[in-house]
């Protein structure tokens, strides 16, 4: 009883300066986030819509915009499965087995995170460009990689390379191998074990990795910019389309296209929160 009273007194005495401090800190934090994050986000939509909704939709449905959207979707549609399969296999070998050099392998997988996107593009130009190592060979066989779609896809695969495996490593490490061992002692084959036991256990982490991978794949600018050659209607993804329009002072169309990517970003954040909430529940 007495303790309770004392505690309440204490809380009251501390309440006022604490409350002041709390709201001061919240105001600073929100102010900073507003200035650096919310205002740019609002600006994208506001600039895109400032000449009216009709122009907004017109600039999204014109031919070059549509082909940029198509190329972006194509790039993501190839990059994501390829990096997902790699991510699952790499995480499987790293977390379920012991071998020498495991840490080195993990570090090597992380390289694309440490490399500037411009350098990511550069390495492929050096390999496949007209003056690159394989340039003469490719030209002789009439294969175009740089300034063409394959180059864009390669560069995108490079920059999004670690996303899925990075999400899976901690989850699979934590889950250990007992459930898989149990499945094997019960007579399951390797694939049965994987699809019935491993995959259901990692599905949320996998989805999380895929969401992040997708966001980066669709939004990548630097690496893609180096290898694309900016050929309108052919090798422009949405971010490159945005750049061209912006540099031509066609701001409304640039921001209209940018708003598509901003919507994608918002969708990504929502999905991310849903997945985080789901994993917390499990």
């Amino acid at each position, binding site marked *: 009883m007495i303790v309770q009273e004392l505690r309440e007194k204490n809380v009251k005495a501390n309440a006022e300066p604490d409350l002041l401090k709390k709201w001061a800190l919240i105001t600073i934090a929100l102010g900073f986030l507003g200035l650096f994050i919310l205002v740019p986000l609002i600006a994208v939509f506001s600039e895109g819509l400032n000449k009216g909704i009709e122009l907004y939709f017109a600039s999204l449905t014109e031919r070059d915009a549509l082909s940029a959207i198509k190329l972006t979707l194509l790039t993501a549609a190839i990059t994501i499965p390829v990096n997902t399969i790699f991510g699952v296999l790499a995480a499987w070998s790293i977390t379920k087995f012991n071998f020498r050099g495991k840490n080195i392998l993990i570090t090597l997988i992380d390289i694309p995170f440490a490399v500037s996107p411009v350098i990511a593009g550069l390495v492929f130009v050096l390999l496949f460009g007209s003056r690159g190592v394989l340039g003469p060979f490719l030209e002789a066989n009439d294969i175009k990689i740089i300034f063409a779609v394959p180059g864009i896809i390669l560069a995108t695969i490079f920059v999004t390379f670690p996303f899925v495996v990075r999400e899976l490593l901690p989850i699979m490490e934590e889950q250990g191998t007992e*459930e898989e061992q*149990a499945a094997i*002692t*019960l007579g399951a084959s390797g694939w*049965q074990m994987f699809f019935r036991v491993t995959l*259901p*256990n990692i599905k949320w982490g996998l989805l999380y990795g895929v969401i992040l991978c997708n966001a980066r794949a669709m939004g990548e600018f630097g690496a893609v910019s180096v290898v694309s050659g900016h050929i309108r209607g052919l090798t422009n993804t949405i971010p490159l389309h945005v750049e061209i329009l912006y540099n031509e002072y066609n701001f409304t169309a640039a921001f209209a296209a940018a708003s598509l990517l901003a919507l994608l970003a918002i969708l990504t954040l929502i999905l991310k929160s849903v997945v985080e909430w789901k994993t917390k529940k499990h």
Partner: protein
Amino acid sequence: MGITIKDVSKAFGNFPAVNNVNLEIPTGDFVALLGPSGSGKTTLLRLIAGLEGLDTGGIFFNDKDYTYKTIKERNVGFVFQNYALFKHMTIFDNIAFGLKVRPRKTRPSKKEIADKVNELLKLVQLEQLANRYPSQLSGGQRQRIALARALAVEPEVLLLDEPFGALDAKVRQELRHWLREIHQRLNITTIFVTHDQEEALEMADTVVVMNQGKIEQIGSPEEVYQKPANAFVYSFLGRVNEFRDTEASAAISYIRPHEIVLRKISQGNSILSEVSHIHIIGSTVRVELRRQDTGALFEAEMSIEQYQNMTPIKRGDILFAEFKNIIVFDHHLENKLDHGGKIGIRNSLKSKLI
């Protein structure tokens, strides 16, 4: 299914987990692999299941070489220490798993699977939980489901890794009787790993005592308790007083606390000792004493009835302690030198209480 383990060794890096082990397990036997942690008992169990690969030696099931058979081919039921139930499946699906993953040709029909699962749920007395998930079950329930899942594939050998290690004392006691019953009903060769000597002695037909990757003794619970092969087995299987002889340092004498009789008057060959503590633990009473001759501490144990029937004792009392069954092991030879109760403890004996 009888199991023969022949000269089996397994090392992890430089650590010899199982070191040249030989073991013969007849069909239908109920075996406890008993030992402290790091004694190699779990590794031996996993070697039998095929969950570890051995370095040398061979494993035979009914005299057929199973050394390089896959886990699947061995047809063993394995119950993992932490049960390893599939978190995302219902209890029903967990138990049905082993049947559902069979190739189409040998897979039972849906109805047959359901019947089998229900039969197993009845066996483990958890019919009402079929649609729950593992996270909604208590530890004891999970243990039973893990066993039902292992039994669903009709294994010829049942292997359990510390089956009751993660459970509280009361549940553990219940499950011991229950597992014993199940073994009697199904009569499949069963091997379980435990570090709890009481559990091993209470449940098993055969106790295999292991230490540092080697088997110290194989025998019935009576044999290993009454006729321990060496000092390790003796001291691992119960409370023990240890008296070290400093002059002939190889010899250590042992006596169990309940083999010491305390009296107020001298009778037979007894040692004058002072009571330093009395612990009353439910139905047993442990008395801690100090020898008047050497100053060594030791412990005597009696039932509460014996305690109540004797003339009341208290701290500081001087009593006569009769050592009824002293055992001496020669550490160099690991041979048992049984001096029976007649040995007089030399004055130079220095003692240590375990």
